[in-house]
Each structure stands twice: as structure tokens, then as C-alpha cells.
């Protein structure tokens, strides 16, 4: 079986390569090179090159590299990128040529000049649909909770993306769960993207260069998740001179430093931040304990560090080393005492990621670009409780320690090739291998009692054993121009997943098509299949560090999804308009069974979950303006997301379909920022969404409390809340207006400072965080009222 599978894969990939090479026999020449920011040397991602005479074009890849194969002859090139002066050049192209282009940031662009050439593969002309690029400059201006600019919060404002509960940093894309998104930081997956229970994400905006969201219709180079790919690229660092910034806000302090180690050869970029609420709160906490006759301290904080080193060996070879580390920590230490006894209690709760990658880019000739990567990513969670009891002045007479740990480790290697054999073909192919180590949950308990001269010791460790799994995939895709009006992106991804002696294989076809009706209007359609072998078990609407990442096993098969989408794309001056419809079917989805919890028994996680299916459909509208003084977007989504668990042994909700908890019928976001002058800009965000779903027992019934095994009969009836079905109650709607203002001041030395004043939830709307029954009434808990904040950033 396996042999036939690989034969089919090899045949598919060979067919793509043969078709690609079909036109390569003609006399063609290739122009290639890097496009960079002239001021900083930073590579530009998705910058455009258009050959005006033939209309052929391309965009730079994630490393700023482009390659375009054309018939030999006269050419007229325009290099462009949003926010930069275009560069034009005309000449006779007779042989393969390397042209590195440095674009200057443009004043005209800010004044509102229209940029059409720079609209990349996600615009009217590209084949890629369901993909949105958000300029980082726009993200930095979006008013933020507690002034903490957040990439994920900005992404949540896009159509097709739901945000979960108030303040949460989870992404729910086109009916998918938060674990169905592949969040890549410089190409490396990050498992836990949340700080502070999900109120903030781990991505420090200071370190980020580019953000692209694929909501579906993934190119074949992406895989291993069902719903979306969020591709975040870190800044390489300025290769000309040192620059940096330092910032203090309501919640955190942070800094960023970048510059050349060896000018135009080796650069670095480092950013770090830490919250300091715990430090400020310490005297209050100590005072509170003292008032209760105890001594204690405690708090919560998070920190993260991003670092990147880039070295250019030559124009053909570049090396990138990226590193991320971030942790959340809750800590408490309490000492209680009376005349004869004393008790010491220590609690530590830690969770966080470590991510590292080494990448090497090499250019073979002018038509083949290769990126080789070795990655490491880890998410760990640890809860330690230690209680010691002393009687008089002695050693501890009893002690109790409990630990709960979970961990996931990935080591991976990948090679990605980009090949441009002819003007009509843009081919990518490659492969990846990942070795996962899962330790889903391990509980340890140590109890020791020496009371009365006796010694009793109990040591228990139980939970899931280490699980080692392997994942491999190969892919090939071709962005194929069949005619000026017709372009196709056809790809195939074959993946293999091995666990506990069992191997799962999947073939995932990806097809995208673009019909260009005019220079400003196109229609796109796509079909894609995806599979996913890791799952996040969560039974809360907020992101808890206790949420478990678990692998598919010999009993739990990988999840699968297929998605069909179609849409119209129109360029109306500087505004990009799009309307897309989609349908997505999902199989082998996991949910906790009724009443299952991460705590409560020694039972393994496989026993606590049920396997089922889901489906989602919807329509999304987006109007986006990326240039000029006024920038932003209006996004609207109408959608429906359902789940059903009706297979024998996997029944939830008695097998009946139920809405997913993040099912939201209407979702509207308006994001706008206006630059009055170089010294002052304002921004506003308005969001409205139908309420999320929750489970609420609407009826009370009087039933026996169970089987009385002593009496051999039912017990006396007693009232209990009866939940008729899962997610049967729609929470009140969500709406919010945020405002922000930036005051900039520029100094002659080239330095400048920005004071940001923002107000979250301007009209103090009590949005629902939680709705629950309290006897005969219904109560709503809201967590974020109107929240003004101010931050100060100094750039040098």
C-alpha cells in the first residue's frame, strides 16, 4: 500500500515538473536578485516586479528574492512596493541577469499616490485567494488593549477570522478551532501564542517585518494545519547603522535594537519586553498578607525575547539564525504561623515557548533558489505546589508536593526550492521532516507524614508516557500562466505521519484559478485538502496554559478538511475590494466528552475525547486601503459553524449537531487610521459581532441523584439543572470602539519619540465574557471596561 502511495505521489510531482519544463526549451533569459529597503538594507517581502511590455510579473519571496524568466529582447521593468518609490529601468535583456534593487521610502506614497504594480499575488492579478497581507505599519497604529500593540489582535479584525471571547488572542478561522492555525515565526511553528491567558499574543510587534494570513486555499508548500497559516517574518536588522527603540507603557516595558555587526554583511535584531505589574503590586500583596497575620509574596508576569542574526556570505548565500523565548509565570510564597505550628506554601506555574531556527539561502544560477532550514520549537507547561507543615521548631512534620507537567518538542528540517523555468511557470517544490516529542500530561504527587513518630511516604507518578511521532511531507506547486486572463496554481502535497507503529498517509491536492476580466476585476476559485496530526485539547473559552497539545495516535486519526472557495476581486483606485464565499468540511475533529476535564482522574487524554466532524460556510467582504493618508479596512463576515459527534463510542450532545462555541453569524470590523501630518495621526477601530455560543441549562428537572447501591434503588429526586444541548445559548452581541492618537516629535539628531494615547472600549460597553445562571437569574461578567492607556517610545 505504502509503495503505491509513493508511486502516485512521485507521478503527480513529476507531471507538474514536466509540464513546467514544457516551454523551457524556447530561448529564455532570467532576471533575478534581491529587493531591499535602501535605508536599512532590510529585505522586502512581496515587493513586485512588472515587465511593462509583456505584462509579466513576479513578487519577491520571504527572503526578498525574485526571479523572472522572459523571452530575450527589450524590457521595461518597474520595481515597486507599498510605501516606497518605484524604480523603473528599460534595456535590452540578452542573457541571464542579476539585478539587486534598493527602494527608497516614498513621501508621495504617503500623500496618496495610487500603487497598482505592487499589488502582489493576493490582489486582483494573483492566483492566491483567501489571503491577506496586513502592513506592519498599519498594525502598529491599531488602538490596543492597555496600549500593547498586538499582531494577533489586528488579525482578528480581518473577515473570516473570529476572535473568541473578549480580549482573547485565539484565532478561529473559517470555522476552525484555535489549534488549526499554523503560526509561523520565521518559518518555525509556535504552539502557544498566548500570554496572560490569551489576552496578549507572544508576538512583539517591534520585531516584526511582515504578516501574511492564508485563510484557506493554501499553496502546497504549507501544510499540517486545517484552517489557516499565519506567516510572520522577523526583521533582519539594519545593515547600515545602529537603530533602536525603548518604550514604557501601562503594562510593559520593551526595547528593540538592530544594526550591523559587519556593515552590509552581518546584522542583528533583538527585542525584549517584560510586564511589571507584579513588581508594582508587590507592596500591596505583602500588605494584604501582613494584615492577615501572614507573610507572603506573589504575582504574575510575562516576558519574551526575539533575536535574529543575518549573515550574507555572498549574493548567492545568506544565513539566518532566529531565536524566540517567552514565558508566563505565576508565583506565590506564603508563610503562615501561630504559636506552635507554621506552614509554608510555595506555588509556581510556568508556561512558555522556545523557538530557534537556522536557515540557509542559496541561489543556483539564476532560476533556482533554495532555502534549507533546521528548526527547533518547544512548548512546556509546569505547575508545582509545595506545602510544608512544621510543629514547633523542627523539621517539617508533613509535606505535600504536587506537579503537573506537559511538554511538546519538535525538531524539524526542510528544504524549499523555487524554480522559474519559463515565463509561464513559477514552480516550487520541497520537503520537510518533523520529529515530535509529546508529553501530554504527567502528574506527580509526593506526600510525607511524620506525625506521632510514624513515617508515611507516598510517591505517585501517573499520566501519559512520552510519545514520539514523525511527520514527513513533500510538495510541488506550479503557478502557471495559461493565458493572460487565465492563471492556475496547481499543487500537490503528500504527507506521512507515523505513530506507535501505525502510519497515516494523505494526498492533499491544492488548486487555485484566476480569471482576469479586466485590469481591475478578476474572479478566483480554489479547492484544497488539508490534514493535521496535532490537536489542542481545551475545555475553556479562554486560552489556558493547561490546554494540552496531543498527537494523533493509533486510535486517534489525523484531522482532515477540504475547502472550496470562490470570489470576486476588484481594484477601485487605491481600494482593494473582495467578496469570497467558502464551504469547509472537517473530519476526525476532537472535543472533550461531556464533563471531561484536564484534571480529575489518572485516565489518559485519549479516553476523554470524542471524535467527530464539522462543517462551516460563509461569505466574507473586505475593502482595504493600504496607501495614502487614510488607510485601513472594512471587513464583514456572515458565517455558520457546526459540529456533530454521532459515531458509536464518540457521542456528544446525543449525536445531534450543535453550533461550535465560536459560531458567529455576523462579524463586522472597521479599522481606519489617518495621518494628519508627520507629527500627528489618529486611528479608530470598531467591531461588532453576534454573540458567541455557550452551554446554558435552561430547564430545571427533579430526578433521583443516582443509583443508591446500598439501598439498591434510586435515591430521592432532587432538582438539577438540565442542559438540553451543547452550546444552546447565544451570548449577547459584542461591540466596541477603540481610539488612538500618536504624537511624534523628530529631533535634529535623527532620533524621534512617539507618545501614544489610546482608549479601549470608548463608550464602556459591558461586553459578555461569561454568562451563567445564578439561581433564577442570569448573570453576565464583563472584564474590560473603558481602558485609557498611554505609552512613550523613544527611537534612536
Amino acid at each position, binding site marked *: 500500500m505504502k509503495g503505491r502511495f509513493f508511486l502516485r505521489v512521485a507521478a503527480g510531482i513529476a507531471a507538474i515538473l514536466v509540464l513546467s519544463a514544457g516551454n523551457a526549451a524556447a530561448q529564455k533569459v532570467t532576471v533575478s536578485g534581491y529587493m531591499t529597503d535602501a535605508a536599512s538594507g532590510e529585505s522586502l517581502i512581496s515587493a513586485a516586479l512588472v515587465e511593462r511590455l509583456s505584462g509579466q510579473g513576479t513578487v519577491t519571496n520571504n527572503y526578498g528574492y525574485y526571479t523572472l524568466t522572459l523571452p530575450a529582447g527589450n524590457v521595461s521593468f518597474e520595481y515597486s512596493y507599498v510605501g516606497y518609490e518605484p524604480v523603473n529601468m528599460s534595456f535590452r535583456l540578452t542573457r541571464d541577469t542579476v539585478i539587486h534593487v534598493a527602494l527608497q521610502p516614498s513621501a508621495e506614497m504617503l500623500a496618496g499616490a495610487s500603487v497598482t504594480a505592487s499589488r502582489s499575488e493576493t490582489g486582483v492579478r494573483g492566483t492566491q485567494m483567501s489571503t491577506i497581507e496586513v502592513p506592519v505599519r498599519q498594525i502598529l497604529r491599531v488602538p490596543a488593549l492597555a496600549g500593547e500593540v498586538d499582531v494577533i489582535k489586528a488579525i482578528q479584525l480581518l473577515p473570516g477570522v473570529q476572535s473568541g471571547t473578549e480580549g482573547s488572542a485565539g484565532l478561529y478561522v473559517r470555522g476552525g478551532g484555535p489549534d488549526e492555525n499554523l503560526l509561523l515565526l520565521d518559518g518555525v511553528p509556535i504552539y502557544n501564542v498566548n500570554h496572560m491567558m490569551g489576552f496578549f499574543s507572544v508576538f512583539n510587534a517591534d520585531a516584526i517585518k511582515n504578516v501574511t494570513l492564508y485563510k484557506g486555499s493554501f499553496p502546497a508548500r504549507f501544510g499540517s494545519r486545517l484552517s489557516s497559516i499565519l506567516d510572520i517574518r522577523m526583521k533582519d536588522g539594519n545593515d547600515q547603522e545602529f537603530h533602536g527603540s525603548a518604550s514604557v507603557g501601562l503594562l510593559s516595558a520593551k526595547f528593540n535594537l538592530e544594526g550591523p555587526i559587519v556593515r552590509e554583511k552581518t546584522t542583528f535584531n533583538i527585542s525584549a519586553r517584560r510586564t511589571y505589574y507584579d513588581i508594582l503590586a508587590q507592596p500591596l500583596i505583602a500588605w494584604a498578607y501582613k494584615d492577615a497575620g501572614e507573610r507572603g509574596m506573589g504575582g504574575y508576569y510575562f516576558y519574551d525575547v526575539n533575536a535574529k542574526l543575518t549573515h550574507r556570505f555572498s549574493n548567492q548565500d545568506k544565513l539566518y539564525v532566529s531565536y524566540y523565548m517567552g514565558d508566563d509565570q505565576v508565583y506565590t510564597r506564603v508563610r503562615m504561623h501561630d504559636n506552635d505550628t507554621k506552614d509554608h506554601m510555595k506555588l509556581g506555574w510556568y508556561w512558555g515557548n522556545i523557538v530557534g531556527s537556522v536557515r540557509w539561502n542559496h541561489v543556483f544560477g539564476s532560476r533556482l533558489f533554495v532555502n534549507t532550514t533546521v528548526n527547533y520549537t518547544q512548548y512546556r507547561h509546569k505547575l508545582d505546589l509545595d506545602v510544608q507543615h512544621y510543629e514547633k521548631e523542627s523539621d517539617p512534620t508533613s509535606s505535600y508536593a504536587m506537579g503537573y507537567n506537559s511538554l511538546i518538542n519538535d525538531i524539524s528540517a526542510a528544504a524549499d526550492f523555487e524554480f522559474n523555468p519559463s515565463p509561464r511557470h513559477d514552480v516550487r517544490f520541497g520537503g520537510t521532516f518533523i520529529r515530535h516529542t509529546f508529553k501530554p500530561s504527567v502528574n506527580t504527587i509526593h506526600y510525607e507524614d511524620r506525625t506521632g513518630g510514624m513515617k*508515611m511516604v507516598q510517591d505517585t507518578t501517573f499520566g501519559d508516557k512520552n510519545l514520539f511521532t514523525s511527520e514527513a511531507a513533500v510538495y510541488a506547486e506550479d503557478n502557471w500562466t495559461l493565458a493572460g486572463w487565465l492563471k492556475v496554481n496547481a499543487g500537490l502535497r503528500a504527507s506521512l505521519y507515523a505513530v506507535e507503529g501505525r502510519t497515516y498517509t494523505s494526498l492533499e491536492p491544492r488548486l487555485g484559478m484566476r480569471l482576469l476580466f479586466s485590469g481591475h476585476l478578476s474572479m478566483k476559485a480554489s479547492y484544497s485538502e488539508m490534514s493535521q496530526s496535532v490537536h489542542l485539547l481545551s475545555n475553556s473559552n479562554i486560552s489556558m496554559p493547561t490546554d494540552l497539545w496531543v498527537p494523533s495516535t493509533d486510535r486517534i486519526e489525523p484531522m482532515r478538511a477540504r475547502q472550496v472557495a470562490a470570489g470576486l476581486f476588484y481594484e477601485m483606485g487605491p481600494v482593494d475590494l473582495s467578496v469570497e464565499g467558502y464551504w469547509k468540511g472537517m473530519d476526525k475533529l476532537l472535543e472533550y466528552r461531556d464533563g471531561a476535564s484536564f484534571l480529575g482522574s489518572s485516565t489518559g487524554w485519549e479516553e476523554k475525547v470524542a471524535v467527530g466532524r464539522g462543517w462551516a460556510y460563509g461569505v466574507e467582504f473586505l475593502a482595504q486601503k493600504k496607501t495614502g493618508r487614510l488607510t485601513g479596512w472594512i471587513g464583514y463576515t456572515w458565517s455558520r459553524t457546526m459540529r456533530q459527534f454521532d459515531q458509536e463510542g464518540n457521542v456528544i450532545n446525543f449525536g445531534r449537531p450543535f453550533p461550535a462555541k465560536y459560531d458567529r453569524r455576523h462579524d463586522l470590523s472597521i479599522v481606519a487610521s489617518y495621518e494628519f501630518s508627520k507629527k500627528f495621526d489618529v486611528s479608530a477601530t470598531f467591531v461588532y459581532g453576534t454573540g458567541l455560543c455557550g452551554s446554558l441549562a435552561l430547564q430545571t*428537572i427533579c430526578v433521583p441523584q443516582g443509583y443508591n447501591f446500598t439501598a439498591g434503588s434510586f435515591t430521592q429526586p432532587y432538582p438539577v439543572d438540565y442542559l438540553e444541548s451543547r452550546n444552546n445559548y447565544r451570548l449577547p452581541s459584542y461591540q466596541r470602539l477603540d481610539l488612538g492618537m500618536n504624537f511624534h516629535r523628530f529631533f535634529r539628531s535623527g532620533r524621534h519619540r512617539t507618545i501614544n494615547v489610546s482608549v479601549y472600549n470608548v463608550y464602556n460597553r459591558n461586553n459578555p465574557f461569561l454568562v451563567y445562571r445564578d439561581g433564577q437569574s442570569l448573570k453576565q461578567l*464583563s472584564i474590560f471596561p473603558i481602558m485609557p492607556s498611554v505609552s512613550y517610545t523613544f527611537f534612536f
Partner: protein
Amino acid sequence: MKKIYTLFAMLLVAVCVLSCEKEISFNGEESASRLTVSALAQAGEPLSAYVSSSVFFLKSRGFESFIKALDVSQGSVRLTINGAAAPIRMRLASDQPDGSLLYNCDYVPQPGDHLVLEAEFPGFDPVRAETDVPYPPHFEVSSLAFREEDGGETLDLTLRFRDDGSYEKYYFLIPRMEIRYGEEEPFQMTYRYASDDVVFKNMGVGAFDLYGMLFGDNDVVSYYFSDELIRGKEHTMKIEIPGIRHLEEGQRFFVEMRTVTESLYWFDVSYAQLESDFALFSEGVTLYSNVQNGYGVFCATAGTCVEVHF
């Protein structure tokens, strides 16, 4: 520095005051009240049924709410045995519990009977539930031994039984001691036990559970197991009963095994989940019901009790 702390404290207070919990009006549709019927048919014991109505949570006002809407004079509760043409009309008991109407009959369930329970009251959809009365299991205590553990004695019991393989079954196993003081009525004391037997692990509710260990909870769910792995086979299982001593005068020790319907198992499991103190971290639980057009459960059990002498 003092100013910073003052500012911080003010901000904290502001957040606490402004972020709020408030009562909200219910914006959904009021779901209809339905009849709730609960009955356990136990082989060899007369059958009783509890009947009440469900109450929309905003209208619930104590036990009275669950029977107020039931017109007893017009309502009826009927039992059909093995498809008989004429159902038995159950009668209202003289001693009524709080919050439910208790209906009795003279019928005594027998293993193999198929029962249909129907209730009809004006203003409510008629409800119907059915169950089969299972056969009691046959088992024996094949060995017993005491051993010292953690400073106390533990009784190891080996049980041998054969599943008849006739249909899917659930079993319930409980050791208990009957204690009699003088002429008084004896009382029953049940024992918690542990077992590594695969039949318990297969239920996803192993005999050992963290919650029970930390908080001393006597989780009844642990005492169930299914015949899925032993259907039609002879099975020998070992259970460990800690904290037990030799029998004294007036004490008798029994091991009771019951065959229970799947409905009783799921009802008990879902009830235990509903009442769990870990509900904060859990998905919402729907209490199991097999009553068509209504709520509650109609289930059955048949038990075998073996006395153990030591």
C-alpha cells in the same frame, strides 16, 4: 515612588469597579416544560416511578414548582409488560416525596421482561420510555487473601465470572459489610476498592482517580464496567479493598455484582459529571435521558450477592 503606588491602586480600583458582573435579561427562547419520569426496575422488587415537570429556570421556585402544573386527576402513568395489550395503570402513592409524584404498582420485574412506561398529563407532551430487565450475573469469589500495606491491612479478592455474551451489558461491582448491633436493623457500609483490571480501564474511569485520592471522594462511577472486552468469556478479576479487618460479631461481608442497563450507567455517569467540583474546567454536561418527549430515565438492574466468610 509613593505616587506610583497611589496611581496603581487607583487604577486597580477603577478596573474592579468598572468591570462588572450584572444581571441580564434572557434573550433566547423559553424552552417548553416537559414531563420528567424516572424509574428503576429492579428484578425482584416492586416498581415505582417518579413523575414531575421540568421548569424553565427563571420560573423555578422550590420543590413545589415541579408538581404544581401536573393535574393529578387527569394524568396517568401506565406500564406495559412484554407487549401486553392492556397496560397496568400505576397508582399515586400515599407518601409523596418533595418535588415529584410517586407512582407505584404491584408488578415485580423479572429478568428478561420488556417494559414500556408511559405518562400523560394535560398540557404536556405524552412521554414514553422503555427498558429490558437484565439477568443477574453469575460469579464466585475464588480466593481471598490479606496483606499488610501502608500500615494497614488490605483484602485481595479474586472474582471469577462468565459473561453470557447474549447482549451488551454493563456491570456494577460493590463490596459491602452488613453490621448489626443488637436487635437494631442492620446497616450497610460500602467499601472503596482499587483494581488494575482491564475492564475498568476500558471504561475511561479507572478505579484509581486523582480526585478521589486528593479529596476522598467516593466516586461511584469507578464501580462500573462493561462487557465489551469480555463478552461471552470467562473472566477473572482481582480487586483490592484497603482498610478492612477480620469480621467481628454482628458483621457479614458481601460482594454484590449487578447487571445494569446502559441507561442506568449513563445516567449515573452524567449525574456524577454534573455534580463534579471540577465543573469550572469542564464542558457542560447534559444529564442522560432516554425518555421520549421528556426528561428522566427508565432503567433496570438485576443483582447477585455473594457472602464472603473470613
